[in-house]
Structure formats: C-alpha cells, structure tokens
C-alpha cells in the first residue's frame, strides 16, 4: 500500500490543490478568487516536478508496483500531462464567471457562491488531470476504469459551464450520454476479460494471455474494450459527438477535450494492447479457436484487422469531413479525429524490436506531446479573438474564417502562432508535426504495414487542403472590416499560451532528440516470457482467488 502511494505523489499534489482551489473560489474577496487559477497552476507545476522524480513502475529493484510490461510509461506520461496541462490552464483562464464578475464589479450584485462556477471549473479541471495521471499509472482493470471515469466526468461538467449559452448545455448532454455509453461498452469488455482470465490485474492478465492465448470470451472482451476506448479518442465509429461537442463548448474547453480524453484513451489502449501483446503470428485467425501467442510480431489477427480498419477509416473520415467545414471549431474537431487515426497506426505497428524508429508505442507517446502543443496553439489563438461581448458580459466567440483573416497584420503574435501551429499540424517539415509523423511512418514500415503507410501519406496530403486555408487566411489575406472589429480577449494568459505553444513547436523541432529519448524509454515494451505453443498444455491452469481483484 505504501509503495502504491509513493508512486502517486503527483496525483496527491493535484488532489490537495483541488481541495484548496474549491475553497479559494468561494471566497468573498475578489483578490482571493483571482488566486484560484494561480494556485491551480502552481499545483500542476508541483505535480509535474514530482512526476519527474517518479520511479518507473514495476521496477523490481526499488520494489515499486504497477504494470511491468511498460516500465517507463508512468514518469514520461505524467510529465507530459503536467506540461501540456499547465499550458491548457493558461488558456482556460477567464472562461467562467466573466459576466457574473463584471456585474459584481459594477455593484449590481453581491457575490453569491451558488451562482459562481469558478471553483468548480478549476476543481474539475484538476480532477480530470488527476484522473489522467492515474490512467497512466493504472495496473488493473478496475483502476483503469475508475481513472478513465475520473478523467471524463469532470469534462462533462466543464463543457456545460464553459458558456452560459444553450449550446454548452446541449453539447454537455450529448457528450455525457454518449460518454456513458462508451464507458458502459468498455466496462462490459473489462468484465469479459476478467471472466476469461480470472483476474483484473494487468500483469496477471498479461501473463495469462502470454501462456494461454486469447479465448473467445477474452477476445470479445478486448475488442469491446477497444471499441469503448475509441469513443475517448474520437475514432470511427464513435466519433459522431466530436464536432457538436467541440462547437458547443468554449474554445478553451475544446482545446482541453482535444488533449485530455485522447491521451486517456491512448494510454488505456496502449495498456490493454500491451497486456495482449504483439507476438501473434498473422496466420492465426479464428473466431472459435483460441489465439496463441508466439511466432509473430503482430496483435492477434482480428484485433489487428479491427484496429487497421478503424485507423484507416478514422483518418479518412476526419480529413474528408474537415474539408467541408466552414466553422473553425468543427474543422478542428474533425482534424482531431484525423490525428487520432494517425496515432492508431502506431498502435497497429506495435513496439517492434525496441529501437525508437521501429517502436510504434514510443511514436504514439511522442506524438501525443507534439499534438497537444500544436493543437493548443491553434485553439489558444481562437480563444483570444472575441467578436464582441453580450449584454450579460459574456464573450461572443470567433468561429469562422472571416474572423482570422488578416490576423498577422492586426496581431502578429496570434497570427504567426496560427500559421506555425497549422503548418505543424499539417506535418510540413521542418516543424514539429513532421518529426511526430516520421516515427509513425517508420514504425509502420518496420512492421510491414505498407498499405497503412500509403493511407497515412495520402491523408496527410488531403489534410493540406484545409490546414493551408487555416494557416494562410491569417497571413496572406487582408483583414476585412468585420474582422478588424474583433477584439482581443482581455485575458492575456491565453496569448501567452499561444506564444508558448508556437515557441514549443519550433524549439522541439530543434532539440526534439531529448524528448524522443524519453519517449523511447517510455515506449519500451517488456513482455512476459513467451512459452512455445507446444509446451502450453504442460502449464497449470489459472485459478481465481480472493486476491485477484488487483487491489493489493
């Protein structure tokens, strides 16, 4: 128990910060209320620093516990989450209570804790980050489920309170119902896996699969769980909520949705696929007979085909539907779907022989950081532009191309951030997005997934259509009268977040090797010993016991 707590210092720090933030936001003094965001930021920073010194999970030397097949995952994931989380917090400043605070400042109203949303907003944000970090450190199915729910439930609330207009509530209700359905799907999958393996502990499940292969029930469980995770990462066929929810929420919260659930979903997929293993021969295909490991370098055939089809469809659907959008937030939502598809290629590729260029898992982990930074840049710029202010004091968001036309002339920092981050999302060398995609290319080629690589390349080319429009609307086109009436948001931290994202994109493409080394360590896959198929019947069967709920 003590060993388990020692691995959770970042989450504990975040939780303590959450409690403080919940109280600070309810203070009657404005100065104290304004400290809420700052304290939240300090908490995320402390969590990040604690994450740097986290020992890898499953390390036999230090006696740390956790899953053993991806030992380096936890420190890297938590540091990335803290870093991008801090940038997102800069963007989230000032989302809620803006009209309320202006009325209080004008003396029309006294501060009413029941009306104020500030405390809940930041508290739920920190809860969600805590859940995300817990997902990275999950070592049993129950833990994974709880962490995923802790990540998602606050996001439903954040979407609802991000804007007082009805679109926020509509988006939140859609997101909640579909999210609950997704959670039900993967929970059912988890229960089937438990029934098949007799344990919820990921290490024991991994050992069971390594020695007995996948029974039909286990296969059904894994497929259902993956399908549920597809909701989190907005992959086809669970992507239908994405555009409406991104458009309904405020831009800053959409930025949050583009990173946090996606990271949670991919960490869960990596953990589950890690438990299954990439050592099945491609010829093994059967719905009724057990799938035996050994002799190959792929996932079990049915899982591999499912992920292949999902990846190809996700990339294509995301890019093609993004071409048709005139709303910027919907365009970015579909681009988010497409990037999930790119990362699924890395999952299909698998860890290979461990070198970074062959390691699809390390490529996905690196791409999560790249995508978080460059996507945040675009959303931060969008959140900085306000078409106006409603009579209640709430901002009217910028959502169309006419709002960003000529932005480089009006506000060079925001305009150039938009250009740099859009071209990076496109994958244009020498920006960061290219160096994020290159490992995905090489890992897929190394695992002989040439058709998928061709699909990836063609989709990157299709994406050029709309990213070019996005990038050069701000740079090449002159601003029109409507655009010049737009104001810049009074919350300067958003512009700072945008500038930091653009700087991060440029910096990481120069010194990216340092981060890549860490991602390579994080993606290192250490499977359990694989018995040869003929020796399987000599092994004893696994019995379910009282301590098999994995809550050691």
């Amino acid at each position, binding site marked *: 128990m003590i060993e388990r707590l020692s691995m959770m210092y970042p989450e504990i720090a975040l939780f303590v910060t959450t409690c403080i933030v919940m109280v600070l936001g309810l203070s009657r003094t404005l100065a104290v209320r304004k400290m809420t965001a700052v304290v939240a930021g300090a908490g995320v920073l402390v969590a990040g620093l604690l994450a740097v010194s986290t020992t890898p999970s499953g390390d036999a030397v230090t006696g740390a516990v956790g899953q053993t097949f991806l030992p380096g995952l936890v420190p890297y994931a938590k540091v990335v989450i803290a870093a991008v989380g801090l940038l997102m917090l800069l963007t989230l400043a000032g989302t809620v209570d803006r009209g309320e605070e202006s009325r209080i400042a004008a003396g029309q109203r006294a501060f009413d804790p029941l009306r104020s949303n500030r405390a809940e907003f930041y508290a739920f944000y920190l809860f969600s980050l805590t859940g995300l970090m817990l997902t990275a450190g999950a070592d049993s199915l129950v833990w994974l489920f709880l962490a995923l729910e802790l990540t998602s439930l606050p996001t439903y609330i954040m979407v609802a309170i991000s804007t007082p207009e009805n679109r926020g509530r509509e988006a939140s209700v859609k997101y909640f119902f579909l999210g609950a359905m997704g959670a039900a799907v993967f929970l059912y999958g988890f229960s089937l896996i438990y029934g098949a393996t007799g344990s919820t502990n990921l290490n024991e499940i991994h050992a069971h699969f390594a020695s007995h292969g996948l029974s039909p029930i286990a296969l059904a469980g894994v497929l259902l769980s993956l399908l549920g995770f597809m909701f989190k990462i907005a992959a086809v066929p669970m992507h239908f909520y994405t555009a409406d929810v991104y458009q309904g929420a405020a831009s800053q919260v959409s930025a949050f949705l583009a990173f946090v659930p996606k990271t949670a979903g991919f960490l869960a997929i990596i953990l589950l696929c890690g438990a299954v293993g990439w050592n099945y021969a491609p010829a093994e295909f059967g719905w009724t007979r057990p799938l035996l490991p050994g002799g190959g370098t792929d996932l079990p055939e049915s899982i591999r085909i499912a992920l292949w089809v999902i990846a190809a469809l996700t990339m294509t659907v995301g890019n093609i539907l993004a071409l048709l959008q005139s709303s910027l937030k919907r365009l970015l939502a579909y681009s988010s779907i497409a990037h999930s598809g790119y990362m699924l290629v890395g999952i299909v590729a698998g860890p290979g022989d461990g070198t970074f260029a062959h390691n699809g898992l390390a490529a996905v982990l690196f791409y999560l950081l790249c995508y978080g930074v460059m996507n945040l840049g675009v959303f931060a710029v969008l959140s900085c532009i306000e078409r106006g202010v409603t009579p209640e004091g709430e901002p009217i968001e910028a959502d169309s191309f006419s709002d960003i036309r000529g932005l480089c002339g009006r506000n060079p920092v925001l305009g150039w951030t938009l250009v740099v981050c859009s071209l990076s999302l496109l994958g244009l060398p020498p920006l960061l997005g*290219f160096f994020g995609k290159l490992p995905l290319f090489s890992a897929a080629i190394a695992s002989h997934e040439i058709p998928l690589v*061709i699909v990836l*390349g063609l989709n990157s080319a299709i994406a050029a259509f709309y990213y070019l429009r996005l990038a050069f609307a701000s740079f090449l086109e002159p601003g029109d009268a409507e655009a010049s009436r737009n104001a810049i948001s009074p919350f300067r931290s958003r512009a700072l977040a945008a500038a930091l994202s653009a700087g991060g994109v440029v910096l990481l493409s120069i010194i990216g090797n340092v981060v890549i080394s860490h991602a390579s360590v994080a993606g290192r896959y250490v499977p359990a010993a694989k018995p040869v198929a003929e020796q399987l019947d000599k092994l004893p069967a696994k019995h379910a016991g009282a301590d098999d709920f994995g809550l050691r």
Partner: protein
Amino acid sequence: MLLFSLILIPLVGALAVALLPAKNAKSVSMATTLVAAALGVLALMQFQSEGRFASSFQFAGEINWMSNLGLSLSVGIDGISLTLILLTLLLGPICVACSFTAITERVRTYYSWLLVLLGAMVGVFAARDLILFYVCFEFTLIPMFILISLYGSTNRKRASVKFFLYTFTGSMIALAGLVYVAWFNSELPVGTQGAGRWTFEIAVLQRAAASMTPAQQAWVLAALLAGFAVKVPLFPVHTWLPLAHTEAPTAGSVILAGVLLKLGTYGLYRFAIPFCPQAIVEHAPLIGLVCVIGIIYGGLICWVQTDVKKLVAYSSVAHLGFCILGLVALNQVGITGSVLYMINHGLSTGALFLCIGMIYERYHTRSMKELGGLAARMPVWSTFMVFFVMASVGLPGLNGFISEIMCLLGAFQASDAWGSGLWSSVGGLAGGDVNGATPGTLGPWYAAIAGTGMIVAAMYLLYMTGVVVWGPLKEPHGHDHGHGDAHAGALPTDLNRREVLTLAPLAALCLLLGVYPKPVLNLIHAPIADSVRIIEDGRSALARSNGLLPALAAAPDTAQAATNP
C-alpha cells in the same frame, strides 16, 4: 562550414530584411545574395574536379540532430550538386534585382521569403542526409506558395494552391519510399559501413539499397517517381506548372523554372538511380516513353498558345522531357547531357522569363494578340530576347545545343537492337518473351521522335519571336507613342542599366557554355562515371536474375548473400 554558411546566409538575410525598415529591404537582400554568390565562387575555386577526391562529397560537414531517428544535418557536394548550387546562387542576385520595380507593396515579406527560398534550395542540393533533403525539399513549397499567392497575377490563388497540393501529395508518397529504404538498411546484418542501424545518411543507404530485390526496388522507384515526376514535371502530372508559372511574379517564375524544377530532376539522379539500379534499368523504356510523349505534347500545346508566359511554361515541360530522356538513357553521354540540360535550361528559360517580365512591367499584358514588332520600340530587349530564344531552341553555338544533342545521343546509343527496348519491356509486362533483348534500352526510335520535338520547339519559339519581336508594331491600347514618360513609373521604353545587368551574365554564360562547356563537363564527369558504374552493376544483376547471364561464381558481398535466398 562553407556549406552550412551557404545555407544560413540567405536565412539570416531573410531575418534581417524582415526586421529592418522596408527601405533597406532591397539593399540588404542584394548584399546577402551577392555574399552568397561570392562564397559559391570560392567553393568552385576550392573544389577538386580531378584526382582522388573527384567523385567524393567535398566540403562535408555533419551536425547531430535527432540521433534516435537517425537524422543528422549532414552536408556535402559533388560536381553535380556544386553546379546546381552555383546556378541557384547566380539566379539569386538576378531575381532580387529584377524585382526592384515590380514589387511595391509588402516589400519586406517578398524579399525575406525569396531569401528563405534560396537558402532552402541550397540546402536541398547540399544535403547528404535523406531527411535533411526532404525537409528542405518540402520547405521550398512555403515561400513559393507565398510568393505566388501574394504577388502573382489574377488567378494566383488557384495556381498557388494547385502547386502546393500536387507537389505535397507526390512528396508524401516519395517519403514513404525513402523511409522504406532506410528501414531496409536497418534490417541488414550489422556491418562496418553503417548497415544494420537506423540511419538516413545517403551514402549508407546507397550501399544498402543496391541489395534490395528487384520487386522491392520497383516499388521504391514507383514511390520516388510519384514524388519527383510531379516536380520535374513529367506528363501527365504537369498540369500545375503552366498555372504556377503564369501566375507567379517574374522572380518567382525565374526561380521556379531555373531551380525548383531541377529539384525533381536532381532527386531522380541522386535517388532513383542509386537506390533502384535494377528497377530503373528495367523500366527505363517506360519512363523514356513518358518523356517523349511529354516532349511532343508540350511542344504541340505551346504552338497554340497566345500568352507568351504560358508558352514558355509549357516549353519547360517539353525541355525537361529531354532532360529526363537523357537521364534514363543510363549511359555516360545521356546522363551528362541531362545534368548539363538542368543548368542550361535554368539559364535560358530563366532569362526568357526575365524578358517576359520586363515586357509585362511596361505593357501589363503578355498576350501575343496585343503585342507585336517590339524590336522597333525596344532594340536592346529584342536582342536579348532573340538570343535566349535561340539558346532555348538549341541553336549550335549556344548552350542549349550541347545538352540537347548529348541527351539525344545518349538515347540513340542506349540500344543493342533497333528500338528493341520498349517492346521487350512492354512485352515483359504483358507476359511475353524477353529473352534475347537487353532490358533497359531506349533506342533510335526514342531519339528520332524526340528529335521531331526539337523541330516543334523551333516552330513555336520562332513563331512567337516572329510575332512579338518582328512584324508590324502593335502595342496595347493606351500605350501609344510617348510611352516612357511618367506612365509606368520610372521604367524607360527600352531596358535600363539594372535590367541589362540582370540579363548580361545569363547571356554571357549561355554563349560560354555553348562554345566551351569543358569546365562544367570536367566538374561533372567523375560523379556521373560513378553513377554509370552503379547502373552497369544493376544491369548485370538484372540480367543474372533473368537468366541471361550466368550467376556469379564467387560469393557476392555478405549483404547480398543475407537478403537473397
């Protein structure tokens, strides 16, 4: 160090232009390009074209970049890269000078992106790391996109988007092929010269790629062709070119025709031949067929053009068909002619676009229906125009003739039987009998049909010259006698000194390379001899696998033994 500074100086100059006030933009960019050109001349003087280092990559340098991915900033030039870099650095000051009066708004943006483009192009030719090559190759798309869409003519938006998307799509597929070769190298048993580890160094990959099976080489060649054929451009993926050339500003057209198209031909020389020797030998006739079609098709389309700039743009399609025809002749004469063609086409077509730009600045039209007989009005311009038209046509005595005759000679000599190359290749595809015919040969038919392309080139270029330069004087309405007063700003009727200075070096080089091309030929001889050796190895390996030659008695190198079962 020299090469890194050649890449960095234009980039630093671009930053300086962007930050300094607009009135300094012209002088700063002119100074930058002149300094870079001087450094290029210095490199030429220090380059050894004979002796032990003649075919190796000189001025080499390496900076570790992303070792986990096998990337390094590794540069080096051989004779061919050097000549292309010199072409780029020569066209740099010329492009800056010709834009002085043409660009009046957003001046700093224009010059800074022009300088960035120059730096990226030097990077492409100097790169010895595959991803550095690809990064610079792709990065040239952004400045060109900006130049066309901000400073171009009426249809510039469509032209710039089509240009970007065509070339970007092709490059993505080429990237897949290039990463495949890198993966193939990493799968080899660990060897002394870099085999067996993940790296993108071109020298290492070249050694490894020769041991790929013919099927693998064919797929890699297809992927590389997808990327580079769009850039060259070869028929039928050439449709972006006339649009981009016509709508670009003058300097944009000069750089596009002079250097950017050569990125594709250089890529084919540098990668398609060494990485896929057997495949290119096997499929050379098909590529040659596409080139010949491009030559004739481009020529016929030129003949019916009324827009002078579009005519010269389509003539680029035809000319570069000759260039690639010489390349896939796969012999010393052909490849030498091809490389020489890259340089000569850059000089003569670049100069033609300069001349057309000067007309456009004065008359604001490029249509042959509205312009005519300008020799009466502008004798100096007409002299240059006729000179460069003759160079483009291939008049003996000027540079175009040398390269054209060498390409045709190469195609003619690449045969062992009368035009058997294409039939055996097509017959092999159709499952026919390939015995008795050496694969990878072009033949007299190719040269003959391409030769008629020379006649068509003469027809359309001379027709255009006849209408525009000679004949009755015809000026657009509103530009009557007395033109040259305050109407078009400060431009006199005939060329002023700056414009003559931009054209004179090009004319001098055209004449010099036409009567005495030996210095350039000396520079490029040794690297091309190396390439021909690789091709001959590929040819004999292909013949061995087709059973036309007995298998090698002694064991070949370990890499081949390990991969060929």
